[in-house]
């Protein structure tokens, strides 16, 4: 990306002043190398977001920013409804509330190494993944409505987990304001066979070991130590979320002119928060969030079942569950004044700092865990939100490494079977339905997550706690 128009504020903060139709500046949190690696579209899209009505403070780009739909992936923007602020289906994405959940196991790497093969086969058999897979849970219309209202809480009431899990999920596992009536029959029918499925693409379930600890005080509070084993699950709202995204993107793109919104780009489909379609979308999107939370809860239960069979001494308490693609109504202090804002995080993670009332009591002193998924076979990270992050980015941080190479090129460059062999040589066992899918997810197709996380830490938007390395991975 051409950085000439950017003003450098610090090593990891850059500012693009508002020009033309932009109502606010763009703030990039990234170092020079990461910025150089971003495509031009990131700047264009972030600038386009800055033109939208009711935007407050700035259009933000996280260190893993890349080309998205209307919003850059790694894009954050807050809007004030009372100032004509908008909600954008593109600013949330198709995979509503895609996110990462991390479970502790109480096991050490030495406990898992001897049974790794058995573990990966059992997980691969028990957790449905990939196109054409179906879940064990099939919902009729009434149950679907309950699920869309209750989220993880609904799943727990049906025996998929325990009440303790809820404290460690954003929104305590159940997004308020969900309106199942605004979720279409088509979206519901797409979900009927997909509850408790992992999906495909960059979704995965990984068993990981803590390789390094950076903030011993915080790691200790999270009960994480080097060589501890954890499980990370990365997936979202499945067909229901995708269909909600599809339908509302179309409706908003067509309706924008009617609302007097001059869309710089059709894909930045949005509507005033107080418009009829805006309200409907918020209700549907919140239902989509609940679907993702319920989905990850069911997969957690399936994972616990596998562990109780293969490693019976393990207990899998939930460390935390974060979501990446959401629009949430939150209170933020702007110029000393508390304001209710609608914060879009598109491929970006909420990262509330210490003391935030939304955090459960056990985590309130240390801040919200921020779970950063690496690409297959590389590494993942645990960070926490910071106090200064609340003002820097509405309490938001990056979500992953971000791709640096198209799927098209990746599958030409790598062979899935060879990648799996190479990873196995390094002790990482991968099982996938599709070899071509593995090639598209090759580690080399992604940016360096370590550089992304280092930049986030230096920028002050999140703080490094622990680095995780994969032992076993299943993907669709």
């Amino acid at each position, binding site marked *: 990306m051409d950085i000439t128009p950017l003003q450098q504020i610090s090593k990891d903060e850059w500012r693009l002043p508002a020009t033309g139709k932009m109502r606010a500046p763009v703030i990039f949190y990234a170092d020079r190398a990461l910025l150089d690696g971003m495509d031009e579209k990131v700047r264009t899209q972030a600038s386009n977001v800055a033109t939208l009505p009711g935007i407050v403070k700035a259009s933000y780009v996280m260190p893993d920013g890349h080309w*998205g739909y209307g919003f850059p992936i790694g894009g954050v923007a807050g809007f004030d409804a009372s100032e004509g602020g908008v909600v954008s289906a593109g600013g949330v994405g198709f995979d509503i509330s895609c996110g990462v959940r991390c479970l502790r196991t109480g096991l050490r790497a030495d406990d898992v190494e001897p049974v790794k093969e058995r573990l990966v086969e059992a997980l691969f058999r028990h957790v449905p993944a990939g*196109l054409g897979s179906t879940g064990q849970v099939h919902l009729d219309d009434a149950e679907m409505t309950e699920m869309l209202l209750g989220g993880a809480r609904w799943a727990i009431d049906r025996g998929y987990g325990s009440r303790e899990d809820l404290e460690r999920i954003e929104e305590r596992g159940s997004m308020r304001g969900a309106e199942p009536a605004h979720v279409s029959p088509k979206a519901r029918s797409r979900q009927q066979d997909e509850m408790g499925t992992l999906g495909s693409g960059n979704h995965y379930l990984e068993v990981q070991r803590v390789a390094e600890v950076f903030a011993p005080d915080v790691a200790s509070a999270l009960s994480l130590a080097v060589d501890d084993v954890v499980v990370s699950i990365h997936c979202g709202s499945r067909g229901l979320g995708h269909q909600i995204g599809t339908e509302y993107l179309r409706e908003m793109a067509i309706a924008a002119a009617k609302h007097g919104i001059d869309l710089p780009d059709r894909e930045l489909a949005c509507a005033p928060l107080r418009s009829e379609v805006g309200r409907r979308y918020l209700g549907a999107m919140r239902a989509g969030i609940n679907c993702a939370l319920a989905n990850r809860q069911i997969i957690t239960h399936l994972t616990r079942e596998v562990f109780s069979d293969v490693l019976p001494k393990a207990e899998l308490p939930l460390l935390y569950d974060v979501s990446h693609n959401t629009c949430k109504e939150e209170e933020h202090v702007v110029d000393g004044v508390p304001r209710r804002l609608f914060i879009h995080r598109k491929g970006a993670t909420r990262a509330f700092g210490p003391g935030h009332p939304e955090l459960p009591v056990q985590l309130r002193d240390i801040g919200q865990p921020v779970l950063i998924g690496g690409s297959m076979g590389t590494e993942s990270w645990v960070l926490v939100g910071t106090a200064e992050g609340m003002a820097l980015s509405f309490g938001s941080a990056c979500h992953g490494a971000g791709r640096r190479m198209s799927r098209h090129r990746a599958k030409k460059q790598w062979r899935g079977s060879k990648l799996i062999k190479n990873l196995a040589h390094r002790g990482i066992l991968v099982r996938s339905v599709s070899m071509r*899918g593995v090639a*598209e997810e090759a580690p080399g197709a992604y940016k360096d997550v370590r550089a992304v996380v280092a930049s986030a830490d230096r920028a002050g938007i999140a703080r490094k706690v622990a680095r995780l390395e994969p032992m076993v991975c299943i993907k669709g």
Partner: protein
Amino acid sequence: MPDWEHFPHEADIGVRGRGESPDIAFEQAALGLTAVVTDPGRVRNDEQVAIRCEAPNLEILLVDWLNALIYEMNTRSMLFGRFRVAIDGLRLSAEAEGERIDRLRHEPVVEPKGATFTELRVGRDDDGQWVAQCVVDV
């Protein structure tokens, strides 16, 4: 000569169909969509599904067409290998032929989530061929 191809997008996949009419370009784009998941040549054409859609312009019609296919693929657990599209003004009616997903034979790569407005274009190239393209979120 009608054809389809994929074009690069960082996170997802662009599909592009070309043909002497928009109808054929749409059929080819649909083949491109199937190819995101599996080789269209592996798909047997056992069952037929009828699809109808209507849109305010040809570009949104393309998005609607691909999203209708994604919906049918998802809810019927099917893949489609052959298409007959007829566009009348801004109305599309089509027959999609395919079979239920066989995970061993088809080895599905990814699951299309939705057709997007990114790189969306339906129009005539300089050589007179119609092009229908957009990025599909996977």
